[in-house]
């Protein structure tokens, strides 16, 4: 028992050591633009996304499917499919360096080491022909140069950290011998093995059963607290955001429409899209007969450049200016920014 505590504490310590730079901002994304190239068309998946991740915070990124949440994450990691997608503009500053300009060799030293990522589907995200221990150990070997056996014992420690029982035995398991929840724990162990400064979690609970979802969420929140790693939490579930995050970014059609602290966003959403999104969350208090409101219209095609506000077609507040000029993200109170020409009217409405 004593051993167990000490090894866990050692892992936690590793996270703390690196946090020496006084600057508050860990990751600074500016005007990120990513396009997908099809046979005949170009899909503008990200149309200039800017945001910051502060040290040790949990930043939620919400929005419906296809709004560019995952593309943002993959653009930061430079893991977009090479043949079809390309980040055509913007910067991703991390420790004073623009990740988009780094040679591939340098970028590899960041992936899994300084910035780690976990994915949506734990069933397919682990390599089926290697043991989970080896897959965790690989990250350690790559970035610390540790020997195979040292890396494997580190892998067992990591499995213990993510609360997998009997980790010494479990390192020798293959992914097919584990449940979905356990595999996601393995993914988390792998991502945290090199004590990253930023963990990008791309819908880590979406593919899991509801009860397992709660366990995994609790695990991430707990590990985050103990390690101090900043987390970028991508989800389409506002409930998850409320439970886990400090700040939130709301994305729509490849742009950020609103950015606020969680309490602020839930107590006084400003952007018409955010408001509509809040209304479409089921609420038990409203009874069974209550029909959930939906947002009229459809998400605009990203194949053509969007002129004006991307939400204008579906927005009850839209006017001439919305259809002509794209609104920029502007401060709206402390720690709250919104991209809307009619923010004031929307709030008072």
């Amino acid at each position, binding site marked *: 028992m004593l051993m167990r505590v000490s090894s866990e504490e050692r892992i936690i310590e590793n996270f703390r050591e690196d946090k020496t730079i006084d600057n508050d901002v860990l990751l600074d994304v500016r005007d990120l633009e990513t396009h997908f190239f099809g046979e005949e068309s170009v899909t503008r998946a990200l149309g200039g996304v800017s945001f910051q991740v502060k040290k040790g915070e949990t930043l939620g990124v919400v929005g419906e499917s296809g709004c560019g949440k995952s593309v943002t994450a993959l653009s930061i990691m430079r893991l977009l499919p090479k*043949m079809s997608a390309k980040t055509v503009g913007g910067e991703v500053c991390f420790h004073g360096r623009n990740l988009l300009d780094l040679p591939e060799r340098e970028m590899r030293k960041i992936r899994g080491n300084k910035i780690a990522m976990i994915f949506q589907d734990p069933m397919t995200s682990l390599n089926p*022909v290697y043991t989970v221990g080896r897959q965790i150990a690989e990250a350690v070997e790559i970035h610390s140069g540790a020997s195979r056996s040292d890396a494997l014992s580190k892998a067992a420690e990591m499995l213990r950290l993510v609360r997998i029982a009997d980790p010494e035995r479990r390192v020798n398991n293959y992914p097919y011998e584990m449940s979905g929840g356990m595999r996601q724990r393995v993914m988390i162990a792998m991502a945290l093995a090199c004590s990253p400064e930023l963990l990008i979690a791309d819908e880590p609970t979406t593919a899991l059963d509801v009860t397992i979802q709660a366990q995994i969420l609790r695990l991430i929140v707990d590990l985050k607290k103990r390690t101090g790693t900043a987390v970028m939490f991508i989800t389409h579930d506002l409930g998850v955001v409320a439970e886990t995050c400090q700040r939130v970014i709301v994305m729509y059609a490849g742009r950020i429409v609103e950015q606020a602290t969680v309490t602020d966003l839930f107590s006084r959403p400003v952007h018409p899209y955010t408001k509509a999104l809040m209304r479409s969350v089921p609420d038990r208090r409203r009874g069974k007969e209550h029909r959930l409101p939906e947002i009229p219209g459809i998400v605009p095609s990203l194949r053509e450049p969007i002129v004006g506000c991307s939400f204008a077609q579906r927005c009850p507040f839209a006017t001439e200016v919305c259809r002509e000029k794209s609104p920029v993200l502007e401060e709206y109170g402390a720690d709250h920014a919104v991209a809307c020409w009619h923010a004031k009217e929307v709030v008072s409405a």
Partner: protein
Amino acid sequence: MAFYLLRRMVSAIAVMAMVGVFVFLLIRLAPGDPAVVLAGPSATEQMVANIREQLGLNDPLPIQFVHWMRDLLGGDFGTSIFSGRLVLDLLAQRLEPTLSLSLLTLALSVTVGVSFGILAAWRAGGLVDRLLLVFSAFGYSVPVFVIGYFLVYLLAIGTGWLPVQGYAPIGDGLSRWFVHLILPTVTLSVPYIAFVARIARASMLEVLTEDYMRTAAAKGASSYAMLFHHALKNAGVPILTVIGLSFAYLIGGVVLTETVYNIPGVGRLVVDAINNRDYPIIQSVLILTSGLYVLINLAVDLAYTLIDPRIRY
């Protein structure tokens, strides 16, 4: 596992028994009579009949078959009708060239084919990929003897770099042996390289889009580790399957190649035996080949478990 092996043995015996019946009937239904060939052009009817009687060719087919099987199970592969020598001795003499050619071809096809396929998949649509497309169209469609004579003309007759024909036993020195085998091996390998590379490319392409490849990249794995560590092992099962199949088909290609390069191997032995209707040789070679085929298949199936932990017997 033990039960699985037992089941495979039983089915192997059944397969070989069927091959035995088929081979036996096929040879005897084919036109031509070994007695006529043996007796020579000036022989009388009576001489031919005597020879037939001596060889037991006048017995009813089922009796002949039972005799053959009885000998075979006792480990007796019979004697050649023509040379009068034991079939097993003749085979042993011819085995070295054939085995040398087959194994070198297998080694070349697998290494070049798999690497070619991996590189083509890695940069799908790129230069290597296009080259592979051209090469495999060429490799499939041009017959072995055309490639063979072309290479001989180019690299042996034209330049004198390599021997034109023939075989040098391994006992006469490794380099002599190797030099004589370069052209035959390359000739025979062309279609197999094309085959293996196409399959390797296809299964790698499928694997490269899997989620776990992205996970590996997110870990900071190098391109080399991604391709040869994460992807290749997952693409391994189909690749191994075609390698097993190729090796089995190789037996056919060997016959042609040995003829083109005048190599005294099993292939040539069989061709001569067929021309002479030398029943014991043909039967023995075919039954042994089918046995080899069954064994290779079994080995491949067992090798799957080494590649993919999810496969268990």
